């Protein structure tokens, strides 16, 4: 009763779920970051009035439970548009937009943190807008934005636990499947929690370290 019925095959099954979690996270964070940078720069560049429609749409992704976003996207793409699209793709699309919505805020905050005087100085030295963005804003804004971005990426990894709703078997879902068969909820949940923790904790610490180091100068 007290020794576990967990086998190597079960660990392989969990590892597969963990792989899906990581894959969904990587795809979404990459796509979401690219989109987020585009949206963030655009919003900063055109000003709050012209960017209002974009701001509104991005705000929706931050104001509705992710579970509902996934259910709606699934119903919209599959039931209404009749697209033959996999649950994995739906999960990646929604998580990417979700990431982008938060990333745009971080990017905008990063750009705004670069003093206007510094940028004017750069332009008066004859730098173009592109050079100013690349050589001045990018390195300075990254310092402000990177720690938050790490937090966002880790948040997306944790939130990816919700993609089970579109039939993607990620880590937490794999754990539940094993609980169904083995009935060892506590042990299995501990293993699952430990996995998230092992990935998230060091990266979160690294983010904290960067924040501390970069805020000193």
């Amino acid at each position, binding site marked *: 009763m007290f020794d576990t019925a967990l*086998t190597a*095959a*079960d660990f392989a*099954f969990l590892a597969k779920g963990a792989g899906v979690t990581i894959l969904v996270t990587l795809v979404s964070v990459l796509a979401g970051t690219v989109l987020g940078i585009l949206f963030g720069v655009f919003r900063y560049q055109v000003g709050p009035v012209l960017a209002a*429609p974009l701001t*509104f*749409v991005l705000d*929706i992704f931050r104001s509705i439970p992710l579970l509902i976003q996934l*259910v709606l*996207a*699934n*119903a*919209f*793409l*599959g*039931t209404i*548009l*009749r*697209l*033959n*699209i*996999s*649950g994995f*793709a739906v999960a*990646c*699309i*929604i998580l*990417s*937009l979700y990431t982008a919505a938060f990333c745009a805020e971080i990017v905008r905050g990063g750009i705004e943190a670069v003093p206007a005087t510094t940028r004017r100085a750069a332009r008066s030295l004859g730098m173009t807008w592109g050079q100013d963005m690349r050589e001045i804003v990018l390195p300075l804004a990254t310092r402000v934005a990177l720690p938050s971005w790490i937090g966002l990426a880790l948040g997306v990894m944790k939130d990816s636990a919700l993609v089970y*709703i*579109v*039939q993607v*078997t990620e880590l937490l879902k794999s754990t*539940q*499947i*094993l*609980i*169904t*068969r*083995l*009935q060892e*909820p506590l042990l299995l949940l501990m293993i699952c929690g430990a996995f998230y923790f092992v990935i998230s904790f060091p990266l979160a610490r690294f983010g904290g370290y960067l924040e501390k180091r970069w805020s000193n100068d």
Partner: protein
Amino acid sequence: MKKTGLAVALLAATAAMSAPSLADKLDDIIASGTLRCAVVLDFPPMGMRDESNNPIGFDVDYCNDLAAALGVTAEIVETPFPERIPALMSGRVDVGVASTSDTLERAKTVGMSIPYFAFQMAVTANDASGITSFEGMKGKTVGATAGTFEAIALEKQVNEWGEGTFRPYQTQADVFLALSQGQIDATVSTSTVAQSNVKSGNFPGISVVGNAPFDIDYVALFTNREEYGLINYLNLFVNQQVRTGRYAELYEKWVGGDLPSLTVDNVYR
């Protein structure tokens, strides 16, 4: 809303996808060479997993038989109870072989075949609760799997009693986990799942204490409402399964005992 929809659609367009097809679904399945079945895999003995976590059970075999008849390979898509019909509606599966009660409410959304299985409803109680019958559940905390026939009936019953609490859980496994932990005092489920879980020894301290006075729960295969070609095929397939003795064979393999009749007296389907 429209804007989000547009943005999502645009993004989807960049993702790999195939154009919506206008051919009939039966053709689509045969052409694709794969039959995707929605099966609930925490519902023993209808759907469960073996030691290597592969899907097994009555519904899994039934899906395999259907695929064999169509000359295609079967793909089992695990769907929790509340997600069965959404999975079909969003095109994630072709057919539901998921012990789905053929209610009129559901038939507004999906097309049901003739019944392919019939369940009795049983009451399973935690031994510490002192419940010995269906009536004994009055005033207690009871639960069932969200979105199932028995959950809807039990919630109605609890409201009629006017005392006690009803809790829906997302999966059948969570219901029995909660029952064995004593979080709920009793549950109503199909007698097959109740017997199978009690016998498995995975859930100590629970027993089947009697039948629930609900109607016999006829369950059907389902697919999209407008796919008459496929629905016709499913009806004939269910008929053939009984006629050829395969239904009895599968019943003996997974459940055992008296074979439930799939017909209702004094009325045509």
